[in-house]
């Protein structure tokens, strides 16, 4: 963490602060709108001029959502999917990223390029063959079918590799000289030094998997296997949306991720580094 020797707070700093906070306020405005709509009565939702805060607060929308849809079940499914995906992806991405950054071996370049290029083709294109494969191994509408494609992720591998580039090779050399095995070096030097990146990666994976819609939509068909995002479709009708119910369900769906981010934000954004070896 950089220490700022000057503690004086000058005018330009103040301007920057104001600008940034104004921007941030604009960024979260839609969210505030969403939450406040979920707390409004139906007749207050489409008022003109628009009212940001509800005239009358009500939890009726949330009650109705719980009645109409099995939110707890969706929550459990989503939690399971996200947790396993995050653990697997973070582990495999850091290991692969580390290897691609710090080691040389035959076919390294082609392998890396192949992995990266899988990101360049939209999921829509190959999701049908993927589904057919799942059908063949009888994992349609099961947890396994949902989870298997999300044990590794190219984006994670690429991200970690880029972050490992800035890890000085000398650290690894020093450990090798002292006789440490490659695995030991990975776990005790590489990983601790990229905690910030690991944190960043986990928050990405969590937000992608938690809100993933396309794959769960195709692979699951029983209500009991739905994730939260799919559960939202319970409240989307063909021509209209019941804004109150929909925003209530949507708010419930994202609260856990927000909580996750708030709890882990320090580790992620501030990055605790080891002293001594630096």
């Amino acid at each position, binding site marked *: 963490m950089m220490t700022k020797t000057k503690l004086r707070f000058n005018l330009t700093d103040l301007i920057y602060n104001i600008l940034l906070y104004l921007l941030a306020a604009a960024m979260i405005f839609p969210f505030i709108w969403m939450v406040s709509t979920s707390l409004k009565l139906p007749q207050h939702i489409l008022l003109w001029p628009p009212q940001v805060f509800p005239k009358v607060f009500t939890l009726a929308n949330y009650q109705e959502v719980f009645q109409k849809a099995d939110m707890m079940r969706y929550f459990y499914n989503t939690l399971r999917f996200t*947790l*396993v995906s995050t*653990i697997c992806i973070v582990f495999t991405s850091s290991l692969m990223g580390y290897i691609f950054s710090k080691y040389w071996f035959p076919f390294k370049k082609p392998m890396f390029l192949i992995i990266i290029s899988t990101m360049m083709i939209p999921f829509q294109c190959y999701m049908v063959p993927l589904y057919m494969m799942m059908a063949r191994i009888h994992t349609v509408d099961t947890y396994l079918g949902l*989870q298997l494609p999300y044990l590794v992720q190219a984006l994670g591998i690429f991200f970690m590799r880029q972050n490992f580039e800035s890890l000085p090779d000398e650290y690894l050399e020093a450990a090798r000289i002292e006789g440490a095995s490659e695995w030991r070096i990975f776990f*005790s030097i590489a990983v601790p030094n990229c905690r910030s990146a690991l944190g960043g990666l986990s928050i990405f994976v969590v937000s992608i998997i938690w809100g993933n819609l396309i794959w769960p*939509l195709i692979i699951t068909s029983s209500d009991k296997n739905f994730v939260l995002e799919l559960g939202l*479709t319970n409240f989307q*009708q063909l021509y209209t949306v019941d804004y109150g119910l929909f925003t209530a369900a949507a708010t419930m769906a994202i609260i856990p991720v927000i909580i996750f981010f708030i709890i882990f934000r320090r580790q992620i954004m501030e990055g605790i580094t080891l002293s001594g070896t630096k």
Partner: protein
Amino acid sequence: MKKMSLILICLSIIMVLTLSTSFAAAPVTITFWTGYAERVPVYRAAASDYMKENPNVKIEVTPFELRQAEQKFAIALPSGTGPDLFVTSFFIANLHIKNGMLGPAPTEVNDWLNKNFKSSYLDLFTDEAGKIYGVPDVHGFQVLYYNLDYYKEAGLTTPPKNLDELMDYARKLAQYDDKGNLIRSGISLRISGGGAGVAQKFDIFLFPNGGSVIEPTTPGKFKANFANEAGYKALNFYLQALHKYKVDSYSIKHDSEAFVQGLTAQFNRETYVIGECKKLAPEMNYGIAQVVGGDVQTATNLNIDGLIVPAASKNKSIAWDFAMYLNKDKYLVQMMKDVGWICTREGVDYSEVYKVEPHFQQVLNRPENMKMIPPANATSFNETYTKFSSRLVEAFSDASMVDNKEKIMKFLEDAAKEINDVLKSNGEYGE
């Protein structure tokens, strides 16, 4: 070692989570997918009654967003991982019928179908060999909604009878603020939006003069039917509305949302809007009339949904049985009363609904010679309508085309060529 224990903990979490699946050993389970979330309460009510009468059967009704439901169904069919029962538009059903993915109705169901449904509806689910593949469910057709209070204000008493009157009325009903901006549209047209909707709504304006986006010529063959007088009148109607008389505009709200909020005086839509109005604007005074006709004919569109059973389903007979069960009077009445959609079975007494909501009677009050025209049963249906919709959206915004017969006809001819090319690419073009 700390690292080791961390890894072990992670691994055990993974193992516990991956292995803990609940195996609900159900008796016979029928899966019923639908893209119509608003109808699900009725389907579920029927399902729970059916399950009480048949304790060894479990029926799971699962809703999805409409396009996603169709997508899922199409992807699942070839690998046999689809549902036991699906409700969808007849067009989609026909696609799957042609490809041999659906199972035909068993004999008992066939007899029941012939007794209870108009043959013109059943024809839409029949293949060339005469086998019926679907139980007609809900049908949608457009009607004209109009705001009675606004009518009274403008001194209008009866609904318009043709396109000219419709425009006349719109001009009397439109309202502007002091800067000249439109604050209440005289008519709300579908001038934007993705998919096939724009062209489908345009059809209604083509019908009065005998036009349509595509029309059947010989069995299995179609051609574009709008590069003519009907097309000119329809397109000019939109152009005049937007640019000449300014009774509709891009910056005002559209469709049922607008009607419910009093931002438009007239618009065409299906019957579900009745339910919308009841819920969101119970005090509003409005009337329903048939869509305007013309010299050639008075007609509205007809979209019909059907309950279909995939050929790969392992519980076909129960699925068909439930499809018949869904058509009991009780549920059809509930569908109209609670949801606002009208089913197709003959001889159902809806009077209890009329008492509560007389608008439904207005809807079904159709003159004898009025036609109901279903969309052309062509594989190219989606593609032609979607492509024509994009073309129309561009044309509507071109103010220089107003009253300009040459420009309009050129546009229509170019578009017709494109549509016919699509038909040709699917081997469906014919004069």
